[in-house]
Each structure stands twice: as structure tokens, then as C-alpha cells.
């Protein structure tokens, strides 16, 4: 059985000062991330142990700020987590690899030729100026992605820019940044893509999905999607004028930030921060009145938290800006205002309802409305955060008759 498994992996762990106990604990943590029970930990350990050779992987940067690379450098329990990452042979990882220039390019070509690799893509796919907004040794960034994606067993699109173009997609940018799935649809590459949200993405989420791929890759990589608990979200890519379906790990996007927020109790009690830097801030009151997008943002940030779990945005005193949502800049800015108008473009991902209450389902919505109304009646919160005017971009485009 897996518990008795021994071999290359345990020797490797031993010289790295990691006990088997720590490793199994870590596998239990990963199991939770994948939405499995801790009983799955031995299977995870076994899957990782099985590989005599490191599984090859490429980490490519498109139109990125390297923030997701920085994020992965902040991974929790590095003595253990990076071991699992080190079980990958990251043959190309622009920000930390030794090689440069044609030596670096050769690593990509060799890996593609050998096959059976995982592709991790950070940053937007740059389409502007006929794809010349990103050039690497004369090759368009999008062409490099197309080639690497076609030969990969699976792709992780890490961070908001790789998911849907992120801020680079925001109107009216001529740089033309779009998401990996949308781009691959356009060039008819069917390699499975799993999307990891937020700007930057969470290192723990990346590690969890890498392990998931290791779990299935040895047996049958074709079952990667079937064996992973996923949620689909649809949106319209206005740059391509096409509908796109994105797959996300269910555990990561299954509930709102508001649902799991440690400040939720203050929300229920009608205790709000109304001014930054105030005593209410120090007391950890709810940030809804200063524009928090937690109620409409579906990520597990409050659970995973950031930087080895020391804190996260809302804990530090800032309202959530919804960077885990689709087209987050156009949809969520102005960040300190409540959203009033629906953005143009008939896309599920872009829907921003007239009141926060309408976006959350069931009991949570009822609670929001009840509290909002109740507290308004009591004169305690007024109307909540100020409503934004209609977005300037939307008004301009309405005058023009829409995007086209």
C-alpha cells in the first residue's frame, strides 16, 4: 500500500530534510484543496512516488508582470511544497531559469519534442498589432503558446491575465490581451485548460493542480478533466467576439469571499468601516460600505489566504477589488463604489446586477437584503457605499452603438 511506499521520492525527501510524516500531512492538505477527503492522501503520495523521472513542465510568460511567478515564490511550507514542485523538471521558467537566449529557447523545443509535459501559462495572450505586442526572439508570443499548447498534456492558465486577459483586456486597450482558453479556441487547439483566478493567482492553488495532474498523468492524462472536480463559467470575449467556456477547480471558485469572510459577523451586526484608517478598521469591521466586492467574487481567498497564510486583502483592511472575477477591471472599477449599471455585452461573466443583493444566491442574498433594508430603516448604514455613475466607457460605447 501507499503508506509503505518507499523509493526515489522518499530518498529525495530525506536528503531535503523532509520527514515522511510531513510529506503525508502535506498530501492531506493537497487532498483538501482538490476537494477530496484526507483519506486520499496515500493515493496522492503514491502517485507522486510512482514517477521515477521528474515530469517535465514549461512555465511560459505571455503579457505578464511576473506577479504570478512572484506569487509561486511565496508558496506555503516551502520545504515541502517546493519539493512537490521540484518533482517537475521545469525546463523553461523565464524568471528563475539559468539559461538565456537560444539556450533557453532550445529547452522549450526539446521539451515539446519529447512530449508528455504540463504547460503553465502566466499573463495575457497578446493579440494587438497583429500579435507583435509580444515578441520573443522574433517569434510572436501567441505563436509560441499555440505550439507549446498543442503538444501539452494539460495547461494551467494561472492568474487573471491568463484566464481572460485580466487588466490587459480592459477597455479600450489596443494591446489586445485575451485569455488562454479563448485564444486556443481560436486556433482550434483542444488541450484541456484549467483556470486559476486572481491577480496574482494563489501559489497553493497552482501546487494543488500540479499535484492533481501528477495524480492522473501516470495512468491516463486524457482523464485529467474527468477526474478533477471542475466548475464551468461562460463569458463573451469581446475582443474575439466569441463565447468562451472556462473550467475552474470547484473548490477554489465554489463560494463567495463574503460567504467565508472573517468579517462577516460584523456585517450581520451592521458594524461597518465607513472611512479608511478609522478605529473601525482596527476593530476589523465589515468593508462593504467602502466598496468591498467580496459578495460577488467567487474565490476561496479567506480560506487559503496569502503569503503562507499570514494575511489577505480584507484582513489587512482593504476592500476586495474582485480580481478573481471575470474581466475584473471593467466590471469592478470604480473599486470604492457599489456597482450600479450592467456592462454592455451580453455575457454571463460580465453581469453586474443593480444591487449587490441580487448577485448572491439564496439565504445569503436574503440576509443582505434584510440587513440592508433593516439597517437603512434604522438609519444605520444609509444606502451602503455610494453607487457609481454609469461607466464612462459604457456611455461612450452606447453612443457609438456598442462595441462593433
Amino acid at each position, binding site marked *: 500500500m501507499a503508506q509503505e511506499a518507499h523509493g526515489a521520492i522518499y530518498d529525495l525527501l530525506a536528503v531535503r530534510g523532509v520527514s515522511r510524516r510531513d510529506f503525508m500531512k502535506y498530501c492531506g492538505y493537497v487532498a483538501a484543496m482538490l476537494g477530496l477527503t484526507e483519506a486520499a492522501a496515500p493515493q496522492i503520495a503514491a502517485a507522486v512516488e510512482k514517477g521515477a523521472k521528474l515530469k517535465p513542465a514549461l512555465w511560459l510568460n505571455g503579457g505578464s*508582470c511576473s506577479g504570478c511567478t512572484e506569487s509561486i515564490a511565496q508558496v506555503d511550507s516551502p520545504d515541502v511544497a517546493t519539493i512537490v514542485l521540484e518533482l517537475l523538471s521545469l525546463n523553461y521558467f523565464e524568471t528563475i531559469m539559468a*539559461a538565456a537566449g537560444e539556450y533557453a529557447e532550445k529547452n522549450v523545443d526539446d521539451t515539446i519534442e519529447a512530449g508528455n509535459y504540463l504547460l503553465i501559462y502566466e499573463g495575457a495572450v497578446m493579440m494587438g498589432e497583429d500579435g507583435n505586442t509580444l515578441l520573443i526572439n522574433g517569434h510572436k508570443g501567441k505563436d509560441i503558446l499555440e505550439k507549446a499548447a498543442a503538444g501539452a498534456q494539460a495547461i494551467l492558465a494561472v492568474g487573471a491575465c491568463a484566464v481572460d486577459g485580466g487588466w490587459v483586456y480592459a477597455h479600450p486597450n489596443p494591446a489586445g490581451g485575451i485569455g488562454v482558453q479563448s485564444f486556443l479556441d481560436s486556433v482550434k487547439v483542444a488541450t484541456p485548460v484549467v483556470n486559476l483566478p486572481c491577480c496574482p493567482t494563489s501559489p497553493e492553488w497552482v501546487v494543488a493542480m500540479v499535484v492533481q495532474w501528477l495524480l492522473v498523468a501516470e495512468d491516463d492524462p486524457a482523464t485529467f478533466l474527468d477526474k478533477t472536480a471542475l466548475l464551468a463559467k461562460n463569458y463573451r470575449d469581446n475582443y474575439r467576439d466569441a463565447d468562451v467556456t472556462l473550467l475552474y477547480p470547484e473548490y477554489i471558485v465554489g463560494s463567495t469571499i463574503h460567504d467565508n469572510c472573517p468579517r462577516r459577523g460584523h456585517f450581520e451586526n451592521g458594524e461597518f468601516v465607513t472611512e479608511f484608517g478609522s478605529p473601525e478598521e482596527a476593530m476589523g469591521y465589515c468593508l462593504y460600505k467602502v466598496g468591498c466586492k467580496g459578495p460577488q467574487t467567487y474565490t476561496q481567498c479567506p480560506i487559503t489566504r496569502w503569503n*503562507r497564510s499570514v494575511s489577505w486583502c480584507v484582513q*489587512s483592511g482593504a476592500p476586495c477589488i474582485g480580481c478573481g472575477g471575470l474581466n475584473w477591471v471593467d466590471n469592478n472599477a470604480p473599486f470604492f463604489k457599489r456597482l450600479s449599471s450592467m456592462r454592455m455585452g451580453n455575457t454571463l461573466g460580465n453581469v453586474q446586477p443593480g444591487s449587490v443583493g441580487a448577485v448572491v444566491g439564496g439565504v445569503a442574498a436574503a440576509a443582505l437584503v434584510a440587513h440592508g433594508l433593516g439597517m437603512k430603516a434604522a438609519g444605520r448604514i444609509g444606502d451602503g457605499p455610494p453607487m457609481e455613475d454609469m461607466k464612462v466607457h459604457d456611455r461612450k460605447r452606447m453612443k457609438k452603438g456598442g462595441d462593433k
Partner: protein
Amino acid sequence: MARSVIDPVTRIEGHLRVEVEVQDNKVVDAWVSGTLYRGMETVMLDRSPEDAFYVTQRICGVCPISHSHASAQATEDALGIEIPEGGRLVRNLLEAAQFLHSHILWFYHLAALDYVNPINALSADIADTYALAQAAGTRPADFGAVAARLAAFAENGQLSIFTGHYWDHPGYVLPPELDLIATAHYLEALEVQAVANEIVAIIAGKFSHPMTSVPGGTAFVPTVDKLDDILYRFVRVKEFIDTALIPDTLAIAPFILDATTYGGGTGNFLSWGVFEAADRDPVNRFLPRGFGRGLSLEDVSPDDVTEYVEHSWYESGTGLNPKDGETKVKFTEYNTEDKYSYGKAVRCKEESTESGPLARMVVAYLHEKGGKDLTGGAAGVRTPAALIDSTLEALDVAGKPEVLVSLLGRVAARNLEAAYVADLALVWVNELVEAMKGTDLSFWKAAEKNTGDGVGAWEAPRGSVAHWIGIKGGKIDHYQVVAPTTWDIAPRDASGTPGPMEQALIGAPIADAEKPLEALRIAHSFDP
């Protein structure tokens, strides 16, 4: 005559191409090209000023805090806000944590592999390694375990991130024992940079992309407990700087002394100044504002900036100050005789000007030699001039600060700056603890108007950053950024004068044009 190209330049943030013309093993001409365009300035139009704070920091995932501070300052300048004292102290701590993270990551994880060969460390004698560490005054580690770890890694035959590099280049001259020490510290530094970023997370929610230094001050209200969490992390990071980063730099330097003879560049240095003093005067910042024309100090203002696009892929007006600047992208083709970069040719006082730690340390050094006190009144703070003078002495070039204007000088300046900032950070935490004992410390102030023009000129770990904003009726109607690396990777300007990295490359030796390691070292020395 041969053209040698490094594209992609790896171990940097972003996408960069370096092309050099080599004659008789020497670079005779150079072209540096930024090969990515993302259009941030265009995205900002018609949005709210706080949106600029949150979005423009996404220009860089390695120095987002500095961008966010420059953006917030631009808005504060435009709307006439002076942030409260609590906001100033918190922002300085946040900026310091990012500086320390960035400098440690740069030296060990981005630059070191140009000098340190981890594969060569396999042949190190463990006892000799301990002896060398002791002699060099650098931090011991379990060198035997690290060697065993490396051996297991190498035996597997899959070198992962170390695959396919110039490892057989004659420029790798360190003894295997020093390679082993540096590799052990490479691994430990992975942990230490993460500790520095935990400070960022406590104050600003996460790294990268901080959340709290909003226009008007900060949304982070410290408690004594949180300051405790911050203080012990700063202590840990400072200990690593003093016991590894600085002694490692001094241990490696004697093996690469030829790097004091090339890689100097333009000799013009800009610092907007960083780490705000109580009087809010940029000239009195802990790393002060100033322009070094060589080793002679001048005043400088954001009005001294001009941007040229003759060799850049834009069809915007040229020779403009960013307050009137525009960004109209237009790709043509890569042609070193014509247009070859998405970087604009930014100039200060019409000079091709370097920014970054070397520039800041030179400017601070000149201020100190002119009588300025940079200790902040605290005992035990090692100031830039003290650090530079003692390092020059250690390298047997006492009294010759001009040696700094070189590849090795640029490497050393960054690490010395880390020591100064770490000293200050401890002073500032205690200052904030004291300030919190009063009752009138506040952290944020609202704007009283919604129209105006402003500029925030600040420093990121890698160089000078400035954001220019125009706000009309609460909406942004003008936004321009001169990012830190824009200075150093600038292409030629209207007069054909090369940018700072280009000038630093020209004259450098190239032992093997197929493996231009020296060019890679120079590029990395700017932390582009």
C-alpha cells in the same frame, strides 16, 4: 565582427532582448529592446484615481508597491492631500519590506547564477567549505546536506531550471567551496525573501499586488500585535543581510575584480528619492532626491524628463514631458537602424540617465559628503557613505568612489543599499510603536476636491518610478508612467545617443560570442 543576441534575457521581470556587435572579443555596439507592450496608460483613461492605484501597480509584479505609492502620490499631489503621519510611517515600512525582498531575490535568484555554478559545487570539499565560510565571515549552513541534495538532483539527470546554460564558460571562476556556500544561501534566501513578503502581506494583504496604500494614506491600521509580527520578521531579514548577503558579496568580489573596469554606462544618475521624511521634502528623503552628473550633485525635478520615440514603436509626439505625453503604439519591424523597442527613450536633463540602487547610492553619497545626515537621528544606522567607504576599503580602493561606476559597483551598490534599508526599517517600526502611544496619530485623509494635475516621483528597488495624472471631475483624463526599467533599457534618442544599458554594454569584453555571459551579467546588474 559578429552580432550576438540574447533573446529572451531570462531571470528578469518582463521581456527583454539584448543584441551586441562583437569585434576582437569586445562589444563595439549594443541595442536593448523591450519586446512587450501592454497599454496600461490607455486603460487608465476615464477611470477613478483610486482605480489607478489598484491597477497601475500591475505594471510590475516584482515592484508593485513602488508603483502603487507613485500612483497614490500623483493623486495626492493633484488633489492637494498631505497624508497623515501614520500613513507616512506605514508606507515606509511597506516599501522597505519590498526593497529587502527584491534585493535578496535579485542577488541570489536572478543575478548569482551568472557567477555561481551550482553544478561545480558538487566537487566542493565540505570541511574546506566550512573553513572558507568562517574566513569570509559568512553564514554557515548544513553544507553536507546541501551537497547531498545537489548530488541527488544532478544524478537524476534532469536539471530543471538549471538545464542548458553556459556552465562551461571560462567566466565561472569561483572555487567549488564558494559555489557551495552561495548555493546553500540561494536556497535559504528563498525562505528569507518570503519572510520579507510576509511583512508586505501583514500591511497590505498580499504580495504581489498590495491593497492598502490608497490615495490619502493607508487602509492598514496597525496594532501592537501586528507591529510585533512585523518587527521580528525585519530582524530575521536583517540578520540574513548582515551574515550572508554582504559577506557573500565581499567574498565573490575578489574573483571578479575585472568587473570594475567595464559596465559603467552613462555616468548620469537619477534618484527621485524614497522613504519619506517627516518634513515631506523629497530632498530630505532617507534616500534623497538628486541628479548625479558623474560624481557632482545637482537638483532635479519631474519637469526635467523628456521622452523620445524615434527608435521606439510609437507614433506619438516625441521630446515630450510626460505631463503632456502620449502613447500611441505602432509596431513596424525590429530594425536596429530604425525602430527596435517598445521602450521609449526617456531622458533626464536631456541626458541618457541610469536609475536604480547605484544611482540612489551615488546621489545619497554625494548628499552625505555635502553634509546631509541620513541616519534619521538613530544610533547604529549604517548610512550609504559609511557602507560605500568601508566596502571600497575592503576591496583596496579606498577613497576611489569612481570605481562604483562599473558592473561590480552596480552589483555591490544594490546589496549595500539593502543593509541601509534594513537598519532603517527596525528604527521605523519602533518609531511607529512610539507614535501609537499618542492619541492623535491618524492614517488616512479624504480629498477635498476632484480636479487637478499631479505627479508622484518615487523609487522602486530597480529604479526611478514616476506617475503623472490629470483628474477632471473625479475621472482620469491623462495618465503617463515612466517605469523604473524604462530608464535603464531606454533605446537611442533623437540624437542617436544610446541608453544606459546600451552604453554599459559597449566596451565590455566577450570571451565567447556564442555564450555572451558578460553581456548577461551587465543586463542583470540593472535588475531590469
